[in-house]
């Protein structure tokens, strides 16, 4: 589960490109003013936009930029300032120092908003994680969380949910996830009490991840089913939730539901979130195999996934043919990968399916076949292959995997004729479900459309239109990057 959170390498600009640094600082200042207005007018969307913009900038952060920004945003000498500056290495760049001095001079008169303070925590945390200083990140995030607890403002929720995420991430990187579980539970509950749905969503996912990390599937399921429900707010968090849900259900043998959640998660995830989608696909393939379905080849040939899905492709092949021998070799060859993916236990469950698929092939090929031959074809090398074969066939018939009867007297398996499926209601039902799916999709899309209030009434001025256009473009551009950053 760790590699899906791929941290993009941070190219620390070692050469002092002063212009780049100042422009970053300038951008940060703009973001800060955005947050100020957002907190002043209580408009959450402004703050969400600020956070989005930050994600675009984060690769350009350097120690000096951050420290001068902190001087700008926080009151020098305040508690938050001194604490945060201690995390940021001082770089002796003369140009920057000048800049710092000038910006610090303007700052003190300003009234500091809580939003801005929390935002400073966020960018320092981002910086530390990008620099792989996880222990400092842990300290920084813990400090930010304790500060957050004392603030109860809905405008902070967006920033706070990001902080929760990185808080958990920094602990995960150092392998101490268990430590923060109770803290997360407490945070989750206070988010529930404060109707901070975004935070609730994020924290629930983090908790699930936390439980799953230690294979505590049962507890995860209990928490999930007991936690209060609400409409999803963020697509990313909803994807994650579906993924965790799929995993839990897979473990608990609810394959059909699991398949649905996993496929939905894979479908909803943005294109850029490759790691996440690979994970989803791996699990989805396994679940489908467990259900007795054979995934299409196209799944394994998706762009950028061939290599990662290769072991699963081979596995699928083995199941498809129903060749136990091949299955065993594949299983042995990729043991390491499966162990790393923590899908090993599921693959063990697959053996049974291999047999069943083999059996189905046999039943299709032969209208009547002796159990002895069945055992041979399935390469059942046990003490009493015929008896084994008999029980396997009987179970398959009972499960509805094959349509056949056993002639116990002659030790035969007699397959029934397969009827013409088009004479039944089956195609209609399939068609109906697809139509329903499409209609549902359409309705949800319509419902998801949002209009700012009173737009039809105000005649917007040129300036406003320009601003809006620019915002929209930015939004579109950042959507992709944003999702990318998130996974």
């Amino acid at each position: 589960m760790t590699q899906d959170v791929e941290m993009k390498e941070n190219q620390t600009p070692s050469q002092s490109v002063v212009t780049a640094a100042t422009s970053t600082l300038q951008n940060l200042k703009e973001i800060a003013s955005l947050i100020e207005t957002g907190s002043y007018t209580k408009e959450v969307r402004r703050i969400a936009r600020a956070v989005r913009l930050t994600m675009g900038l984060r690769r350009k952060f350097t120690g000096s930029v951050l420290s001068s920004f902190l001087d700008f945003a926080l009151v020098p000498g305040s508690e938050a300032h001194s604490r945060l500056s201690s995390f940021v290495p001082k770089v002796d760049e003369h140009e920057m120092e000048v800049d710092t001095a000038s910006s610090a001079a303007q700052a003190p008169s300003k009234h500091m908003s809580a939003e801005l303070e929390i935002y400073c925590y966020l960018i320092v945390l981002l910086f530390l994680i990008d620099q792989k200083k996880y222990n400092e990140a842990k300290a920084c995030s813990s400090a930010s969380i304790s500060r957050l607890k004392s603030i109860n403002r809905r405008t902070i929720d967006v920033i706070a949910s990001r902080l929760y995420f990185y808080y958990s991430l920094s602990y995960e990187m150092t392998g101490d996830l268990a430590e923060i579980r109770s803290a997360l539970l407490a945070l989750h509950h206070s988010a529930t009490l404060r109707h901070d749905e975004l935070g609730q969503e994020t924290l629930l996912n983090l908790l699930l991840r936390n439980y799953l990390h230690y294979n505590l599937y049962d507890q995860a399921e209990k928490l999930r089913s007991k936690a209060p429900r609400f409409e999803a707010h963020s697509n990313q968090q909803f994807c994650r939730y579906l993924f965790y849900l799929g995993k839990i259900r897979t473990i608990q043998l609810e394959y059909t539901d699991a398949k649905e959640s996993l496929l939905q998660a894979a479908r909803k995830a943005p294109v850029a979130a490759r790691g996440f989608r690979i994970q989803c696909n791996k699990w989805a393939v396994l679940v489908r195999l467990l259900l007795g379905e054979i995934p299409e080849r196209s799944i394994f040939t998706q762009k950028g996934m061939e290599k990662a899905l290769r072991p699963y492709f081979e596995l699928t092949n083995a199941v498809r043919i129903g060749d136990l021998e091949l299955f065993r070799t594949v299983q042995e060859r990729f043991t390491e990968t499966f162990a790393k993916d923590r899908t090993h236990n599921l693959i063990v469950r697959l053996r049974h399916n291999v047999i069943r698929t083999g059996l189905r092939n046999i039943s299709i090929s032969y209208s009547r076949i002796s159990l002895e031959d069945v055992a041979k074809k399935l390469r059942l090398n046990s003490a009493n292959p015929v008896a084994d074969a008999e029980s396997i066939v009987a179970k398959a018939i009972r499960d509805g995997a094959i349509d056949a009867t056993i002639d116990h007297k002659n030790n035969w398996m007699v397959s029934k004729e397969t009827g013409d499926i088009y004479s039944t209601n089956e195609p209609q039902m399939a068609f109906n479900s697809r139509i329903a799916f499409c209609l549902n999709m359409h309705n949800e899309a319509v419902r998801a459309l949002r209009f700012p209030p009173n737009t039809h009434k105000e005649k917007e001025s040129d300036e406003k239109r320009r601003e809006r256009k620019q915002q929209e473009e930015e939004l579109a551009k950042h959507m992709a990057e944003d999702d990318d950053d998130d996974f």
Partner: protein
Amino acid sequence: MAATMMVSSAGGLLAMLNEPHPSLKLHALSYLNSLVDQFWPEISTSVPIIESLYEDEEFDQHQRQLAALLVSKVFYYLGELNDSLSYALGAGSLFDVSEDSDYVHTLLAKAIDEYASLRSKAVESNEEVVIDPRLEAIVERMLDKCIADGKYQQAMGIAIECRRLDKLEEAITKSDNVHGTLSYCINVSHSFVNRREYRHEVLHLLVNVYQKLPSPDYLSICQCLMFLDEPQGVASILEKLLRSENKDDALLAFQIAFDLVENEHQAFLLNVRDRLPTPKTRPAEVVQAIENTAPQSETPSGDAQMTDGTPSVTHVQETDPAEATYSERLTKLKGILSGETSIQLTLQFLYNHNKSDLLILKTIKQSVEMRNSVCHSATIHANAIMHAGTTVDTFLRENLDWLSRATNWAKFSATAGLGVIHRGHLQQGRSLMAPYLPQGGAGGGGSPYSEGGALYALGLIHANHGEGIKQFLRDSLRSTNVEVIQHGACLGLGLAALGTADEDIYDDIKSVLYTDSAVAGEAAGISMGLLLAGTATEKASEMLAYAHETQHEKIIRGLALGIALTVYGREEGADTLIEQMTRDQDPILRYGGMYALALAYCGTANNKAIRQLLHFAVSDVSDDVRRTAVLALGFVLYSDPEQTPRIVSLLSESYNPHVRYGAALAVGISCAGTGLSEAISLLEPLTSDVVDFVRQGALIAMAMVMIQISEASDSRVGAFRRQLEKIILDKHEDTMSKMGAILASGILDAGGRNVTIRLLSKTKHDKITAVIGLAVFTQFWYWYPLIYFISLAFSPTAFIGLNYDLKVPKFEFMSNAKPSLFEYPKPTTVPTTNTAVKLPTAVLSTSAKAKARAKKEAELKANSEKAANTEKAGNESGSGKGKALTAEKDADSMQVDDSTATVEKKAEPEPSFEILVNPARVVPAQEKYMKFMEDSRYVPVKQAPSGFVLLKDLRPKEPEVLSLTDAPTSAASGAAGQGQHGTTASSAMAVDDEPQPPQPFEYTS
């Protein structure tokens, strides 16, 4: 905790709960309790087991409580706060209220909510609701903690919410600033206590607390008592204050009286007055006699004495001096309480400060087509509104020919318009209207329309102060059987006897109603409503029965409105009646039901009422009902004007023009005089609506919102004025919107630009006359003469400071804002003689303006004495502003000087403040900038920025300089020994005070 951190599942402990041995169970419970924060999802599956442990009688108390606590916590995490609370109560002492955790905080909040809802349910449904004593204990502990921590406001809030008046009292008395908390509490009880009876209980308590204080705040007490309708209490307080040795106490008593009068609760005021002892000295008899004989009195001099108070002099020598001052004060107080003092002063103020722009009217008159009678009478209406209360009828006088085009009902309106113009002219009202009044039995040749109109006009003049005129109106009503005259008389009688519930008058009107004549019946219905306003009597059902019986729509409508008026301000008390009306088959009665909702819940912003109205606004089948339902929202919400535009914004875009019209008026009513930006934005598109009557409504509403807002503070005011002009001048505009524009111009400049529409008094109480006036005004949809009811809602925006003798002394104070923000609008185009003087006059104080105005009037009347007097006042007033004064000293050179002043003004920047001189125009938006000067001779008794304020004289030895009145300073102090002579002299002077009654004029029809 270190050990517990290691645990990764609570499964083991949960299993232990099933063990038979109690000590194992106890162990499991205590561990689970410490782990519950982390493992509640797991524990939640075993809640039934733990619950059974709690209920297990064999367990010892501690264990059971522990189990309860655990279950409570689990339920809390599951979001089941009700269950959580009940188990927490079961946990007894283990549930620690002082613990600082989310769990405890949440449950405490829940407990208080629960307790509050139980308590209010117990009271409202009148049935015994068992309240868990443990719950009560928790809430009480919280309250005590709040009080102990000094968080009195919280404590008061909780106590009010939970209906714990004992705790409320405790919180108030223990607080460090009792007066502050008390006024906070009054505010809270008005804005947040929704049930009327309960609010009364709270107020009772507050009055008690007030009275126990060493230095009671009598102003607030009396306001409360008025709410509680306890005239006896007020009367005794007033008496106590009057008896006091201290002059300041008397001033306070006067101030209280003025404040009470401002709330316009006629019946209550009369009650208070009657409960005050009658002065034992001779003047009392005089007053009494005058009161009784006033209706017949032909000489105005007698009336004037009432407010004068000086005639007490003869007896002063003989009786106890204390008794004498007392009776003198009492006479004054009675004058105030009868409303006559304030009406008289207001009239003087409006007359002297009249700034109406005749050119606007002239433009309207010229552009309106001769044959278009609707616009013609709209112009007459506009004129009346513009000059409401100013007694200036120049326009009518100058256009007698044009006026004579009004026939039939238009004539009725034209005559009634005089009543609006002379509103409050109590002394000479009757003599003014005499030429038009029906000549009892003499068979006068007057048209019934003008006679009816004159009776209506009398009602308007005496609205809510009809003591003197009631009898005459009754006689007129009885002596006629012409329905037009009956109509006028009914309306007039209703207005004059507003809210008095006088049985005899009621019977008279009822007999008119039972003649089943449509025209008279409609007026009778409304009149009954006016008479019984706010009484919620049984008679409403009688009226309702007749409404069902009659065939005439007009009568039904009149009665429907009348019934609605009876439940004014009754809130829940009116619910049955409202229910009855809104469920009726007849749309007209449902329409009345909407008004009933509006008036019963006026100014409460009650959610239930709003919900009901919104429901009717979208669901009723009748357009009339829907329109009224939306309109009614304006009444319910006027105490919270910011809300209205938001609530009706969707309705203002309805496909149904009636709903749009209603939305426009709702905004107009609730945001009247506020100039609220959102309200204007909402109305703007409606003023160019596709449907003509929506435009009409929007224009009127816009004028109501923008009344007295200057262009400097909102540029849209100027745009609106130009829009009105354009509509009026446009030949192709629809009659309806033209009429709207004409009325809007009238309302925009109402009362000589010195009044605003105010539904709340300065003490945030509903003004019954104003609310009822507006409610009836909205009926103009059906009946144009009802437009005049809007004049009831006008209240002068003036600061009038009074001294002990109830005279207006010269007193300066400061408005800490740019003068241009609140100045009068500039007159249109070439200044006429009437408006020339008040060009943006560089003159940096209104005193000079006022002076110039006063002088102008003086000239007009050619009253040399008065001119001399004002000159003198002006001289004294502005010694620092010599330039301006000298400029105006010479009336002939005025024009020239004025223009030079304007030139000079351009050079210098606008000052950031303005010195105002008593009495001055202070518009509502200006109130927050008002400052009293510290080194002033007078100190106001109450820190109020407008209205009537009594001033304490810090230098009583010095001679006083009076403005607005002719009375020489020596007479004011009531020097003894003048005897009879003094009496007549002063009363004559008081008469001179009044503007001369205009000569009656005749229609040349």
